[in-house]
């Protein structure tokens, strides 16, 4: 590249920066919305099942039955809302959606235990919210099992006991799981939409036409426009990281620089996606919709919300082709587990390959479309 080319790139980058600065409203929203989303995800959303509303019908009403109910309450998963007099009343609560679980203890509960017979009790679970239902069933079974063992062992110690220890996120806080993913997804949105708009805006105003009548080359336009947006995305990333660290106390156990090194190819890929969109879209609205079209699959398939391991094989394969998957995995690794180079070179390699491929496609498409 010669001197004139560098001068052109410099002037394009400077001009693009002026556009960013001259539009404080957009700048504010691009920085503000991620913060709002963080507070939503960090404070409001909790995927851990706790305090599920429960109604109880205790026909037995003995020491044993009351102890059973106590065990449910002590698990922390269930909160007894009301003691009902009939099964029908309990069911009405569940149908109305006021309770998700009903525990029904039959009249002969204690008698059967004493007689050494199997003593069943019913646990009704509202299956509409699948995560609550699954958790309620598990905990219900576990409580019954423990109670049974207690009966059999009659005060003797349990012969075998699992001692689970949750590493990296001892309190299993949802925020620690969500926020690193959010950081990545927010940067993806920002980069894609900004770069798509950077071209489409000039298409709409006719300045692109004027621009192309100068000796400027397409590659220079792409480079010049990308530089300020790489910087802007990195700044946004840093702000989110800072809020995450200070307010939500998500730990940073690995090297932050490593994370930023991975952010670069990711951002380039997303900016190139935006450019690709801009070759198809003629208005900002159309560009916005197309951008959402690329962002939504990566929200659902990247492991940001739903764990990749529990996806069907085909979606698992697809997820490996989504750049977001790789950066989210790397971000969780670096922040929560302190993962280092020895594993992350794979992520680096994959993200750079993606960046090069997508940028090349975008550049070729832009050259074709004059």
């Amino acid at each position, binding site marked *: 590249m010669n001197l*004139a080319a560098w*001068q*052109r790139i*410099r*002037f*394009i980058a*400077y*001009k693009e920066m*002026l*556009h960013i600065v*001259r*539009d404080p409203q957009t700048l504010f929203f691009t920085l503000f919305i991620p913060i709002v989303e963080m507070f939503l995800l960090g404070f409001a959303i909790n995927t851990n099942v706790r305090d599920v509303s429960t109604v109880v019908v205790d026909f037995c009403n003995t020491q044993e039955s009351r102890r059973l109910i106590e065990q449910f309450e002590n698990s922390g998963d269930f909160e007894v809302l009301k003691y009902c007099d009939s099964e029908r009343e309990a069911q009405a609560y569940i149908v109305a959606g006021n309770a998700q679980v009903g525990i029904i203890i039959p009249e002969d509960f204690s008698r059967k235990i004493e007689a050494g017979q199997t003593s069943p009790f019913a646990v009704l679970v509202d299956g509409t919210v699948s995560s609550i239902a699954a958790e309620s069933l598990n905990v219900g079974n576990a409580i019954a099992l423990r109670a049974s063992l207690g009966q059999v062992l009659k005060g003797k110690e349990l012969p075998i006991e699992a001692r689970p220890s949750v590493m990296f996120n001892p309190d299993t806080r949802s925020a620690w799981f969500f926020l690193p993913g959010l950081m990545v997804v927010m940067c993806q949105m920002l980069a894609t939409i900004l770069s798509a708009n950077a071209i489409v805006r000039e298409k709409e*105003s*006719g*300045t692109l*036409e*004027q*621009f*192309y*009548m*100068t*000796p*400027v*080359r397409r590659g220079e336009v792409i480079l010049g426009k990308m530089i300020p947006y790489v910087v802007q995305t990195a700044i946004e990333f840093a702000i989110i990281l800072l809020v995450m660290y200070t307010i939500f106390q998500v730990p940073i156990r690995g090297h932050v620089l490593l994370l930023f090194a991975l952010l670069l190819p990711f951002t380039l890929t997303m900016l190139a996606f935006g450019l690709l969109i801009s070759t198809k879209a003629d208005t900002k609205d159309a560009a916005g919709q197309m951008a959402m079209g690329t962002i939504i699959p990566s929200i659902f398939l990247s492991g940001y919300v739903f764990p990749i391991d529990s996806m069907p094989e085909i979606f698992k394969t697809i997820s490996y082709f989504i750049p977001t998957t790789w950066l989210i995995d790397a971000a969780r690794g670096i922040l929560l587990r302190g993962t280092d180079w020895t594993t992350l070179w794979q992520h680096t390699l994959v993200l750079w390959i993606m960046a090069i491929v997508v940028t090349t496609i975008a550049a070729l498409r832009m050259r074709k479309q*004059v």
Partner: protein
Amino acid sequence: MVKESSLNTDPDVVIALHDCSIQFGKFRAIDRVSFNVHAGEVFGLLGPNGSGKTTLIRALCGLLNFSEGEASVFGLNVRTQAEKIREQVGYMSQKFSLYGDLTVQENMDFYCGIYGLSRAQAKQRQAELVELTGLAPYRTRSASKLSGGWKQRLAMVCSLMHRPRLVFLDEPTAGVDPVARRELWDLLFRLASEGITLVVTTHYMDEAERCGRVGYLYLSHLLALGTPKDLKHLPTITPVGSKRWEIRGGVSAEVLAKLRSRAGIHEATIFGQAVHALIDDNVSLNDLKAEGLDILAADANLEDVFVTLARQASKENGS
């Protein structure tokens, strides 16, 4: 005909087009167009919307490829040396196409940078052009806050930064008030007097009259080429056996209705207080004279020329 473009070593010929066509899929946007533009000329490119004027300009700047034919600008091949051509060409488009959120100064700086001017060159050139156009008081204003005429001047200044020897102006005066239009044309003539070649597209007949030579594009074909005066005297415009008349007095609309109902009267149209018409010699106008109307021989104006050419071309196309 001599293949002018292939042996275009004549420094006087700035643009040389020979049998050039542009194909978009099944649509032929430009169909076998040939003409030359000479140094220092003010060349008008006319034609209805969609006739291919802008397409032709874009192709001459190398943004589109000619599918057939030979085209060169400054003797440089449009197909292979477009970037070299663009270094010496200015372009000003029909709509305001500068950055509204940037100031006048920033817009000028940007184009200086893109055209590779050094800081000192930029400063000197900006001073010259600001002086020429009177933009000085507006340097720090956002470009979007300028009025139409000033916007066009800024666009022109930006397209002249690199001292182009050829400037394409695509409807530069569309939507600009008459005073600003005249001032813009004064500027154009000053540039032309400095030896800069101008190619201007326009819909305004008074602007076409100002051009040294005019080409008329219709349905992708170049229908006519010449000085405005030549075009008005084209034999096809006023065919043998007919004459152009101007009919004055009376209510124009009524006269027009009367004329249109008769055979042998073509292209009757109102011009202010008068009606212009192309009338076959065998048609008697005595009854109109008897009504006290003045009937005077008239010359074709440029509008007549283009309307007549367009009608004839449509007829040929249709048959």
